[in-house]
């Protein structure tokens, strides 16, 4: 089974409980196509307040999203338009934008990317950096990820190696000149969950309730 199939297969059960569904994993051929499908989701679920990561690879998706939403809104009278805001890349290390955490809590949707995708466990890996804030995948109740299948690796060992190899190589040498610090890697496997009440699985707990992933299979 190839990595894309495996990732999708592993992700499906993470998004369901006995009584509810908490997201989806889709495949598509371009960022633009993903953007159109995200627009459909936003329209369908009535999601209005959206924050998007600064990641450049999302640009075609966002353009397509705007286009599709304009079409949807033309056909609907009254009601609020969808407000899509974009993070700006900030300080080198921190990945925080100029918004406060309180402001992030008011967004309904956070749209970001991924730096690594682990097929074995359907895990989405985010490196903290200037191009996506930590709050985006944490505070809004819906988290949408649009990422290329080129980010896929098989297992956690591979993801760790690709994330930290440059550090391992530098082991023993002086790190005085390095501006960088050890990267922060957040591994996300499904929406937030708990089973602390009678071991009954409940989604979500404190974090995002819905997790949607679009896997872009670019040639």
């Amino acid at each position, binding site marked *: 089974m190839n990595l894309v199939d495996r990732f999708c297969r*592993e992700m499906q059960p993470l998004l369901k409980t006995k*009584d509810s569904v908490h997201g989806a994993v889709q495949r598509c051929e371009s960022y633009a196509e993903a953007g159109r499908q995200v627009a459909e989701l936003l329209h369908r679920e009535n999601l209005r307040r959206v924050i998007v990561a600064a990641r450049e690879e999302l640009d075609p998706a966002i353009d397509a999203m705007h286009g599709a939403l304009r079409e949807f809104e033309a056909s609907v009278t009254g009601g609020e338009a969808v407000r899509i805001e974009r993070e700006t890349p900030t300080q080198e*290390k*921190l990945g*925080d934008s100029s918004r406060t*955490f*309180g402001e992030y*809590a008011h967004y309904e949707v956070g749209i970001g990317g991924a730096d690594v995708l*682990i097929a*074995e*466990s359907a*895990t989405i890996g985010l490196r*903290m950096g200037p191009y996506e804030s*930590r*709050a985006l995948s*944490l505070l809004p109740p819906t988290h949408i990820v649009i990422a290329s299948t080129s980010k896929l690796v098989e*297992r*956690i*060992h591979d993801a*760790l*190696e690709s*994330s*930290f190899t440059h*550090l*391992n190589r530098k*082991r023993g040498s002086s*790190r005085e000149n390095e501006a960088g*610090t*050890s*990267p*922060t*890697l*957040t*591994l*996300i*496997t*499904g*929406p*937030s*969950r*708990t*089973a*602390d*009440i*009678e*071991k*009954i699985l*409940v989604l*979500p*707990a*404190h*974090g*995002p309730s819905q997790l949607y992933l679009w896997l872009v299979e670019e040639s």
Partner: protein
Amino acid sequence: MSLTALRKRLVSALADPALSLPYEKATATARAKRAQAVAELPDFEEQRTLAARARRDSVENLQELIRLFEERFTHDGGHIHRAHDTLAARECVTRILSHYQARSVVKGKSMLSEEIGLNEHLLAEGYEVYESDLGEFIVQLAGQRPSHITAPALHLSRVDIAHLFHEKLGVEYTEDPVQLTKIARTALRERFLGADAGITGANFLVADTGQIVLLENEANIRMSATLPRVHIAVVGLEKVIRSSVDLGPLLSVLARSATGQKMGAYTSILGADGSPPRHVVLVDNGRSTLAQNSVRSEILSCIRCGACLNVCPVYERIGGHAYDSAYSGPIGALLGPHHLGTDHGEDLPFASSLCGACSEVCPVKIDIANLLRSERQRYVETSGASVSERFGWWVWSQVMIRPKLYRILARVARGILQGPGLGHGGNTAMGAWVQGRELPEPAPTSFVHQWSRAGGRVSRGKRL
């Protein structure tokens, strides 16, 4: 025997048949989930071996790795504090909090913070402390201790929790776990956004990259380590691992052993990136001493998965509170005395049938059962067994080294056992032993007798 305190708690737990019901249900589910998760990873045993090796490496090179972690973490802008014991650790935390003029604290689940009684201390010093893990939030509201390493509110039913939320939070009464979780989510969201400081534990500290590793399902730890103005991680020395490479095997076995998941929902590998400022309080509390003990140091390999609790027939029957310790279950019986002081739980190794199931499931291959046996031996050697017990063992050993005497007494015993009316022992000591057991039916003649009658050769042993 001077195990009265333990005996009392055991008797009280055994007297309540309903007590074990939530434990039986939960641990059965956990065992099934673990079995499935282990079976579906083709190289689980190999990962387990690598994980065990990584943990032994940590314990054997504790001081070196801690020093390495300290160097990297502080180089990257993090702050390290060393605390020799519980008092020092508490003082450390309050000093950091006062430096940042923090009054309110949001907490992720941390066994170490239970070990050092951090919550009680902070509350006494006038801080507001909000437990954010749902299970911990529940037991905090109830004023109780957690009853399991990974599922703190295991002993409470949804009805208990419904009443608790209704009374303590003033919300409408509901027994629906989805609604109850939503109530906690709303209450805690405010706390996450408003707290001055976030305090967590850590699952691992990576020496070669200077990173803190935090595993969870709820996202409350991500919130606690990200949203407030300062992040404090209180961590036992033994959590250090040599390299991020070791995380591969460790993460492969941990979640599978704990909850049967391939990975927890969130694994945060945090560098000291300065936002928020990160402080690690490294707590010793007997760890560096234990690391130097060649027999017992492997206890420090524990990665707090709780698999041994889920498989222990004693834990399942008596529940977590009967251990009366921050750490319950088989591993708790080993950790308690070393970390909490010898007047805490020195008798706990006796709350075991030595069945060995714990050793079988431990993802880092700690031979828990054998260590329990060895702790019992040490207890008897230092505290001494009762006179009657010592006399009984002496008599037994005198008989066992005299084959002729043994054979005579065995014939006598057979005669008695074949006789009527011996099912439920005479004096109290035997009574406790035979309650719940039936004495076996002895064979009509001894094996040696039957063997030689069938033509087999027997060489008569001499006194040893």
